[in-house]
């Protein structure tokens, strides 16, 4: 279910993965939840000497990863994170998968329990383009990055950057770092108030920890 919002052919330009990878300290222990075909795991293992493990819902994705020599299990973020002990990893990463989980809050809470830090990236539903689509067409938005129609989308829990910041407050999680990315996955370069990012960031990456 990784990168569920990305349409086919787009994963080649996964600049957002590089952004996430950069936030991980070399040599650390990482669990990538929803690791897809293992692109991020490979970046981490080969580029940063990370002890990288993955969990992936789709069996095809898992088999591909294991055949590449990556340490990946078939599992569901909503149910299987419960089996990991507290503090088992330095980082638990959920890359472009939050919106496809049944219980996003429970998932993020597990991530904060299992890892010293949680890295969450997600598409921002508060982006101006999406707001305009709803405003003017009155239809559920379909964009280049969010290419599914409402009736077939695996993305059942969209949120905006502002929503996510509010959730962090409710969970009493500390936001250690955050970045908004433009439609190409490049960081929005300037520090701005959340309301600005909420309007102009197409994606967001948050690094969280327990307070």
């Amino acid at each position, binding site marked *: 279910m990784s990168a569920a919002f990305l349409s086919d052919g787009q994963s080649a330009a996964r600049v957002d993965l590089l952004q996430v990878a950069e936030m991980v300290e070399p040599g650390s222990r990482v669990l990538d939840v929803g690791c897809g075909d293992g692109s991020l795991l490979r970046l981490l293992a080969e580029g940063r000497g990370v*002890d990288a*493990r993955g969990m992936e819902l789709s*069996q095809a994705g*898992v*088999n591909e*990863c*294991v*055949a*590449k*020599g*990556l*340490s*990946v*299990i*078939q*599992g569901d973020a909503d149910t*299987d994170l419960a*089996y*990991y*002990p507290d503090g*088992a990893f330095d980082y638990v990463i959920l890359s472009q998968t939050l919106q496809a989980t049944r219980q996003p809050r429970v998932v993020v809470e597990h991530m904060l329990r299992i890892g010293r830090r949680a890295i969450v990236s997600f598409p921002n539903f508060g982006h101006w383009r999406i707001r305009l689509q709803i405003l003017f067409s009155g239809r559920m938005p379909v964009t280049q990055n969010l290419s599914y129609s409402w009736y077939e989308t695996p993305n059942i829990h969209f949120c905006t950057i502002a929503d996510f910041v509010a959730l962090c407050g409710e969970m009493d999680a500390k936001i250690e770092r955050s970045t908004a990315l433009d439609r190409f996955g490049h960081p929005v370069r300037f520090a701005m108030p959340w309301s600005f990012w909420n309007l102009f960031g197409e994606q967001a990456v948050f690094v969280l920890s327990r307070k």
Partner: protein
Amino acid sequence: MTRSHATPAPVRNEADEPSSEVLRFDATQGLELDCGVVLAPWRIAYQTYGTLNADRSNAILLCHALTGDQHVANVNPVTGRPGWWETMVGPGKPYDTDRFFVICANVLGSCLGTSGPASRDGEGGKARGLEFPVVTVRDMVRAQARLVDHLGIETLFCVAGGSMGGMQVLQWAASYPERVFSAMPIAAAAKHSAQNIAFHEVGRQAVMADPEWHAGRYLELGTRPEKGLAVARMAAHITYLSQPALHRKFGRNFQDRTAPTFSFDADFEVESYLRYQGRSFVERFDANSYLYLTRSMDYFDLAADYDGVLAKAFKGTKTRFCVVSFTSDWLFPTSDSRAIVHALNAAGGSVSFVEIETDKGHDAFLLDVPELLETTRGFIDAAARARGLAPVKKADRA
């Protein structure tokens, strides 16, 4: 099955004088068993393939299933058929014998040369029959560890096997965590289910109900419970397949006829097939060994030795695991493998888990299933890199 009841020569020869290597332990080198008995003297028959490297770091121990044997990748001396895992083991295969030193030993209690109820290595050179102590999967692993000691190998690069072999893999990882660099339990479980114990009991009762069994003393009397063992095998064989696979293979097809005969002859292809399976099995396997080995699987419950918590069996493990299951395996279903994975997650272990889509049932682990080969190759190659084992150069290939 109207032939003579005398044991055909090949089985007896292989039980007593196996055509593979044999390591013998004398009366002073007994093997302590879970039941409290010290087995002595005893012996273990094994095969090896490939070459042990100078660091002794490239050894793979393969563990065979219930009725398997040490002849993994060579012509079987009893059946004359290819080794049971030639899809997986050999030059350039996932368990690459150009790169790894592959060991497989006949399990304790079996009948291909390792001590068991049919081997004449007891007092007075008689077959031990039911005097042979009941052995466990842990006993099998202890016996293998003695062999691995003898071969001068401190740490095995990988321990792998399917079904009962997978149980041995899990036991190895729990009993000797520092000696197992990587582990592949395939189509296995950390405990034998009630349903599986039930099937085994049906098989044992079939053997013991055969008058030729003679309370296990048939070898002394020069006879054999062929009918009982064949029925046991027929019942077991069904559990190794799947409903869709049976249907695909046989459907309701008639055997050499176009209509039912209104008799109890083998009208259906599937009946004829099962009868053949039963018949060919009794020619290669000892009935008492079948009782002992099914029992060892029934007794297997790894968590029981660790306060009922499977994760404790793997506490602090550094072994790299790859757990594999098959979608249509209802004997060792994916839920059994998932329980192993969850325990390894809880223990903070390194684990990969692949469920392979196939309609071939439990037997899939023995068959040419491309995804099993790819998974194994990927896992083994990555583990070999982590172990610092150099890849095979093309020029070095035989």
